[in-house]
Every structure is written in structure tokens, then in C-alpha cells.
């Protein structure tokens, strides 16, 4: 059994792990895309990202809409920024939406997963590529590196990004993987319950491209758990072979505090355990609390801070009558 897992992982790593340099020929990529009649939407979920959003829109629109027409739309879906994120994005030519204004009969939750889910409703593309707004070294590879495997390989459904591979010329050996939450929480959990998913080098990376036919069939936790749940749900339904991953080299972004990562880990763990229960992998699991308790020191005293992290989940979009009607899928 374990041998099968190792074999599958090795085969998958050989065939479904790419480097963005393999897709440098954008003219050819666009030709193949157009031959298939595919449309591609870029979704950038935002909350107070005025520092980086301008550059991201300028570079991606100029390079991947104007110069090389790979993208059919660029949309910013915002959770209610208090800064100038929306004005900046609109100023440089992105379509700008407030998450709360999309599909309003479903209400509004604040969270990245909510914006990603609303994107399925709002955007037009057969492929949606999600790119976080906090990338300081944005480059077109962050998009074409992810959509190219979907264009060239019809059997691939979901492409994740990974970063910072050791230099081939260097003798130095460095761990190449995810951040702290990936290595301390997600990778051990996957090793225990979904060992094949450990092949994905950075399961929590915020950049991925997915076919609409997949996105509309999976539920979306509105907060931190969205990436982890996607991997489990897509894996459970379509198997490891439906995934690919692309090395996008270096990604420079904000550093998060350990306290913030604690909250992230809590949300991920809740989403994970929910799936463990749904798949009947473990039984007798108690009702999960939504409260995370953290401490901070003030003078000689410790103060408790209790966060409520409910990690609500949005249902598969395909189950929504309004969506079916909008996309003429009723028949």
C-alpha cells in the first residue's frame, strides 16, 4: 500500500510538476488556448492591498491582456477595503467588485474564500486563476505558469504554485517546501490521512488555476481553510492525477506573525477535521469549538484573547439555482 503511494507520488512528480520556464512561449500558449476556445479570468481577492495592487494590475494587464492576450478579464474582488485598493485597481484597468455586491441574495462573509467563491459566479472564464494581491515581485509567470498546464494537458484540472526551488548549480541543500503552517500542520496531517497529497510542495500557496467545471462542484470555506479543503475535495473526487504544480521561482510577500499563523492554523484544522468526519476516516469526533484562545503579556499579567473562527462554508456553486440560470445550465 505504502509502496503504491510512493510510486504514484514519484510518477506524478515526474509528469505533473513543471517550471514556469517551460511555458515561455506565450504566442504558442495563446494559439493553443484559442484553438480550444477557452476563456481565462484572473481573480485577485483583496482586503487593504493598496501598496501592491497597482503594480500587480499594471504588470499583468499590460503583459497578459494588451501584449499577449492570454487573459480575457482581470477582476479584483474586495472584502471591503478601507484604503485605496479599489480606486487603484480600477485606475489601472481592472474590473472591480465588492464581494458583498456579488450574488447578494446569498449574503456576505468576510474572508478570502468568500471572494474566491463569488468569483465563480461573477467571472466569465472557463479557467479561473487566483493570484494573491500581496506579491511584491509580481511577474507574468505567476499567471502563465499556472494556466499553461491546463491549456496543454486537458486531463489536468487544478494547478498549484510553489516557490523557491534550490538552485540547480548550488551544492547547498535546503528544505524546499511551504511556510511554517504547511510544515508544522498541513504536511503532517496529509501524511497521516492523505499521503498522496504530500506530493504537493506548497499546499497553502495562494496562487492556483482551476477549471470552472471543478470549481463549481466543490464547497468553499470562506476563510483560512479554503486551500486545504480544495485539495482534499478535488483529490477525493478526481485523484492526484487531476493536479499539477508549477515552480514560479521566488515570491516576495509580507511576513506574518506567529500569532496570525496560529489563527490561520486553527481555521485550517477545523476545515480539515470537518472533511475527515465527512469522509468517515475517524469516528466519534466531538463537536468542534470555534474559539481560539491566545495570550499576550501586559506588564506582569497575561491577558487572554479569544478569537471566534467559525470557518463557514459556501456550498458548491452548481447547486445554486441563480448560478445555473446565469450560465444557462438549467437544461
Amino acid at each position: 500500500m505504502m509502496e503504491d503511494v510512493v510510486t504514484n507520488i514519484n510518477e506524478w512528480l515526474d509528469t505533473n510538476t513543471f517550471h514556469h520556464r517551460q511555458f515561455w512561449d506565450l504566442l504558442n500558449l495563446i494559439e493553443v488556448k484559442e484553438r480550444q476556445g477557452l476563456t481565462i479570468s484572473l481573480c485577485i481577492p483583496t482586503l487593504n492591498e493598496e501598496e501592491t495592487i497597482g503594480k500587480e494590475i499594471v504588470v499583468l494587464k499590460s503583459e497578459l491582456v494588451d501584449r499577449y492576450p492570454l487573459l480575457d478579464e482581470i477582476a479584483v474582488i474586495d472584502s471591503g477595503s478601507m484604503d485605496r485598493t479599489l480606486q487603484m485597481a480600477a485606475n489601472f484597468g481592472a474590473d472591480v467588485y465588492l464581494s458583498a455586491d456579488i450574488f447578494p441574495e446569498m449574503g456576505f462573509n468576510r474572508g478570502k474564500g468568500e471572494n474566491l467563491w463569488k468569483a465563480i459566479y461573477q467571472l466569465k472564464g472557463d479557467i479561473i486563476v487566483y493570484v494573491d494581491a500581496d506579491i511584491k515581485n509580481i511577474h507574468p509567470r505567476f499567471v502563465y505558469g499556472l494556466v499553461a498546464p491546463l491549456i496543454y494537458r486537458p486531463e489536468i484540472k487544478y494547478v498549484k504554485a510553489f516557490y523557491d526551488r534550490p538552485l540547480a548549480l548550488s551544492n547547498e541543500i535546503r528544505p524546499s517546501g511551504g511556510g511554517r503552517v504547511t510544515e508544522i500542520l498541513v504536511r503532517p496531517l496529509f501524511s497521516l490521512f492523505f499521503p498522496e497529497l504530500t506530493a504537493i510542495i506548497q499546499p497553502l500557496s495562494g496562487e492556483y488555476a482551476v477549471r470552472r467545471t471543478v470549481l463549481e462542484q466543490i464547497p468553499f470555506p470562506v476563510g483560512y481553510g479554503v486551500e486545504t479543503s480544495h485539495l482534499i475535495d478535488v483529490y477525493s473526487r478526481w485523484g492526484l492525477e487531476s493536479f499539477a504544480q508549477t515552480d514560479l521561482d521566488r515570491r516576495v510577500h509580507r511576513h506574518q506573525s506567529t500569532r496570525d499563523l496560529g489563527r490561520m492554523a486553527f481555521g485550517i484544522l477545523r476545515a480539515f477535521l470537518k472533511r475527515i468526519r465527512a469522509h468517515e476516516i475517524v469516528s466519534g469526533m466531538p463537536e468542534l469549538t470555534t474559539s481560539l484562545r491566545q495570550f499576550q503579556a501586559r506588564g506582569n499579567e497575561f491577558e487572554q484573547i479569544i478569537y471566534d473562527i467559525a470557518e463557514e462554508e459556501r456550498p458548491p456553486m452548481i447547486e445554486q439555482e441563480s448560478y445555473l440560470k446565469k450560465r444557462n445550465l438549467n437544461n
Partner: protein
Amino acid sequence: MMNRHENDIGRIIEMTRELPSRLKPFQEMLLANLVMIGEIPASTFHEQNRVKFLVQRFTECGLQNCSTDEFGNGIAILPGKDHKKTILLVAHVDTSFDNRVDHTYTVNARHVIGPGSGDNSLGVAVLATLPTLLSKLGIQLQSDILMLGATSFREQGNLEGLRSFLANQHTDLGFGISIEGVPLGRLGYHSMATMGGEIVCKFDTNHEHRPGAIHVLNRVIHRLCRFADDPLNDATLTLGTVEGGASYKVPARSATLRFLFKSDRDEIIQETTEEIRKIIQTVQGETDCWIDLEVFAKCRAGGLDPSHPLIQQSRRIIAGLGISPIESPHTTVISGFHEHGIPALCLGITTGEYINYPDEKVEIAPMVTGIAQLIGLLLAYDGGCCDEHK
């Protein structure tokens, strides 16, 4: 003939006035190139990655002869209709920032901010974007445009990329334009004679009980200033940077001054160089400090006369866009062209602040005007409006 050219330049000035609004829809292409070029570090002598990107852009634009020469310069040709004349467009690719500095750029509603954004990532971005802009505007010149991303330009580089290119190329270049990011309105067409260099004062042995190298350098600086202030002397001195020492507690073991002398005449700079050597010998004799002079940047005086038709028409084109020309008595790059007898001028594209500091920034809105003046000037030269009357 005069009347025909007068009509032509009038028409070109009118057309140039409309260009900023016609260029506005393509502004993001320039900004994207600025960001992508600016984020590739390119300190002097280490510009190869930036040149590689530039040449790739030239190739993507369908230019001819896209290549890198033996001096590391990036080169391409935008062919004209009749190939009778060739215009050289040059932007230096190197910046004043070490390649280890964080080169991440930021774009906000008004500015692009990042090291080297104005000097000279924007100039290089204009070079990379111009072929696309001309194509979008439906403009094809009669003349060929030779695009040059010049390496080893700044400070110790001493225009080496440009000088080597000009010394080794065989095209009859009718006219050269150097594109600088800032400031908009800049109109440089003359170079003063200059000598830029470095004076290093250094103690080789234990020096704790002596005045340190900074004291010695101070003596040198004092004498240089006295020489520069002498009313009989025609050279002006700029004290650029001073570095030295390791701690506030101990006398400095070494100290370095970087400076520039300028004059209208080459022979004055020659005499100044001799005078500096004498000052160094004198101070060296008074102390037992080792003092060395390295001259790393030398320019000959020369360039175009302010009444040259090229300059006159440039003034009119710039003024036609509502900008006051900023005419500088000294633009280093002109010296490189002058040595090869090529008429040339230097233009700026936009306004900027904190140039050569890490928070260097350039203003977005004026960029289309800066490009409009460049295109206007290309059209004027191409149409014969800048020819000297015999």
C-alpha cells in the same frame, strides 16, 4: 526650402500636441516595462540581466538585428521606410544601486517608486516600449532607428558602453538622442570638459597615535577648495562623496573622496589634473600617509551650438507641449557623441524626486508628454526640419 520646413515643423508641433492623449491608452505598457526593467538590478559593470530583458523585448517587438555586442550593450534596429538616415536612440541601463539592494518597485496612483526608477530605468523602459507605441500610433519613419541600451555608463563606467559602440560601429549615424528618465524638459546638447576621480588616503601601519586618514583627506579637500575658489581658475569643483573610518573611537585608517572638476575648456582640465597631483604630493610630504588619485571619468568639452537647428526645433517642440526647456551647460553623454562628430542631445521623460536614493520616484502623468516630445523630435529630424542650412 525654408518655408517648406517651416510648414513641416509647424505641422509636427501641432501633431505632437495631440500625442499625449493618443499615448495615454498605452501608458500601462510603459509602466509595466518600467517595473520589470527596474526590478532587475543593474549596477555599473553588472547589467547583463537587464540587457538580456531589453533585447528580449526588442525581439518581441519584431525589431531587426536584436543582439548584445562585445561590450554588453543591447542593440536592435527599428527599420524605416527608406533607410537613408539612421538615428541612434540610447538609454544607459546601469543604475547607482548595488545589485544586493532590494529592487522591489511600488506603483501608486501618481508615482512609480523604486531604486533607479528615474535614473535610468524609465529611459530604458521608453526604449523598450517605443517600437510598440509607434506601431500603435501608425507612425513609421523614413529613417532607421538604432536602439542602444548602453552599459558601463555611470561614474567609473565613464560612458564605456556608448564609447565602445560608437568606436566600432560602421553606420553613418546622423543624429543621437540620449533618453534619461528625468527631468521632463531637459535639453542637453553640450558637454563641459570634466575630470571625475577618487582620492584615497591610507595608512598602512598602526596609526593610533597619529591624526587619521580623515584628517589627511581634510587637508587635501581644503587645498582642492582653495584651488577651485581661486578667481584665476576656470574650473569648478563638486565634492561628491566622502567615506572613511571604522569607528568613532579610533583614527581612520583610510578615507576616500570622490569629486568632479568641470570647465569649458579641455586644457583647463588638463592643468587641473596636474594641480591635483601637486596637491597630493605636497600633502603626502607633510604626512606619511599614502595618497592615490584615480581618474575614472574624463569628458572632452563639445557639443552643439545653441543655435543649431536641431536645438531650435527641439525647443519649439518641447515648448509646444507646454513645457519650459531646461537647458543644461553640461550633459556628460554628449561628450561620447562629440568625440565621434555625431550631433546629439539628451531629453528627460518625466518629473522625479529623490533621484539616486532608494526611495527614488517618478511621476506617471507627465510620461506621455515626455514620449510625445521624443516622437515629435524624431519626426522633425526624419522630415529634414533639423538639417543645417548650407
